[in-house]
């Protein structure tokens, strides 16, 4: 199987590799996949509480070159978007951008799942933070 130039570029120069403090209230963490399946993605976002804009994104991925490229691309795409905008990213957009072959479509699905999981984690934190905030205000 040969890889597209974009997959190779992301593999050789992955964007936004790293980790952020997952206990921070502004950070949402998504961990999807399983080692037994050969793919695990961790995608993190840091969201501006005022604007809901994703200001930072980081990833780490255990998986094939296409999985690494899909998650690397996902961090590039979510950065600068609002949380709602980021949720509109679909796996097929990733497939198209990276020219993934059919056997690698699951990599793009996992990247979409990772975005959703990270946003879901961040939203949960905002909801659980609210009662605390109101308690302080009283």
């Amino acid at each position, binding site marked *: 199987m*040969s890889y597209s130039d974009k997959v*190779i570029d992301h*593999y050789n120069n992955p964007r936004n590799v790293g980790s952020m403090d997952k206990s921070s209230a502004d950070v949402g963490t998504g961990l999807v996949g399983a080692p037994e*399946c050969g793919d*695990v993605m961790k995608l993190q976002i840091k969201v501006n509480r005022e604007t809901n804009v994703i200001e930072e994104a980081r990833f*780490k991925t255990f*998986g*094939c070159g296409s999985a690494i490229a899909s998650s690397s691309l996902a961090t590039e795409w979510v950065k600068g978007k609002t949380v709602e905008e980021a949720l509109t990213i679909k796996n097929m957009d990733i497939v198209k951008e990276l020219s993934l072959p059919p056997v690698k479509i699951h990599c793009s699905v996992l990247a979409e799942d990772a975005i959703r999981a990270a946003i879901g984690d961040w939203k949960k934190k905002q909801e659980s933070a609210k009662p605390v905030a109101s308690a302080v205000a009283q």
Partner: protein
Amino acid sequence: MSTDVRVPQQLPVTRHSAPQGVKLPIYMDNHATTPMDPRVLEEMLPYFMEKFGNAASRNHSFGWAGEEGVETARERIAKLIGATTKEIIFTSGATESDNLAIKGVAEMYREKGNHIITAVTEHKAVLDTCKRLEKYGYRVTYMPVQKDGLVDLDDLKRAMDDKTILVSIMFANNEIGVVQPATEIGKLCHERGVIFHTDATQAVGKIPIDVNKQNIDLMSISGHKMYGPKGVGALYVRRKNPRVQIAAIIDGGGHERGMRSGTLNVAGIVGLGKACAIASEEMSREAVQLGGLRDRLRDRIMSRLDETYINGSMEHRLPGNLNISFAYVEGESLLMGINDIAVSSGSACTSATLEPSYVLKALGTGDDLAHSSIRFGIGRFNTAAEVDYVADRVIETVERLRELSPLYEMAKEGINLKDVKWAGE
């Protein structure tokens, strides 16, 4: 192997420069196939043009020349494995030899019984042939293997019953290079009047084989795994003590004692014969050399990377084979990082089925480590400088990919990955 071959030429030009004396890309996938030895090619060449005759043409010199080439090859193969010339049947390769041996025995001995024993780590040419026979009413026992990849002789004893007609256990495994106790398996079979077939594709010409001392009745041989040409192989069929009979699966002109019809691939057969002649001369010296290179590769990699695991027995192993799992790194991504080196992975991503290697799973290697495995196949033309370069590239790439791996990060934080509830499970 379920793994397929990475073709480095399809990938972009590497940013690495080769050290002195090393030419890139490096081929280190000699279980998939071997390059042909130039001495083999030289011997074959006349048989494409001047000596083009049909070896079955008995009435003119063109046919005689072809026949002479074939019979010399037959002698050379027989000599390498301790057989007689009448016991060598030429085929198109080891897959055909496996099919002929297993289906041929199944049909010929149907009156006697319908039970076949094989092992879960066999090549698909054996497993799928057995599966086919199950459809026709044969019973097949697929024996498990031990952690080191070897079959348990007591398991084999227990698996045999009065309907057992055939045991098919490979001589050496194509993924992990583990060498089975063929002599003991053959002895058990002969004590019970059961025929013993062994797929020796990876072993012939690499380690000593004697069909008589090792109680082998049928043995599959391939040309292209031992520096000979592709598309040619042989089946050893024992003629006495006991005499083994097989039904043909290809009918026609009655070539090869009626066991395999079809005009002989004379040039290919000559090449296979020459490859065997070279092996007879050089095998013992070459095994020491390959074993040394293999240990050098293993030591260099394992002294600098933690959490690397060897799959299969190191003691009972082909000299040129090394199969290592690199924890927290997925095999295909590792292959992509060492794209100027041709090796294979047991990762699902490199297989058509999206399942990781069934051989590694059979050893009890977890799926996660099966995804992380790389098979190195060191061969006749590899050098110490190449081994060092390969080791260094692997180390550097594993380190880079571990920095990218969430699993490595979690393990470093002290999280037991087995305790994590994974979303995908």
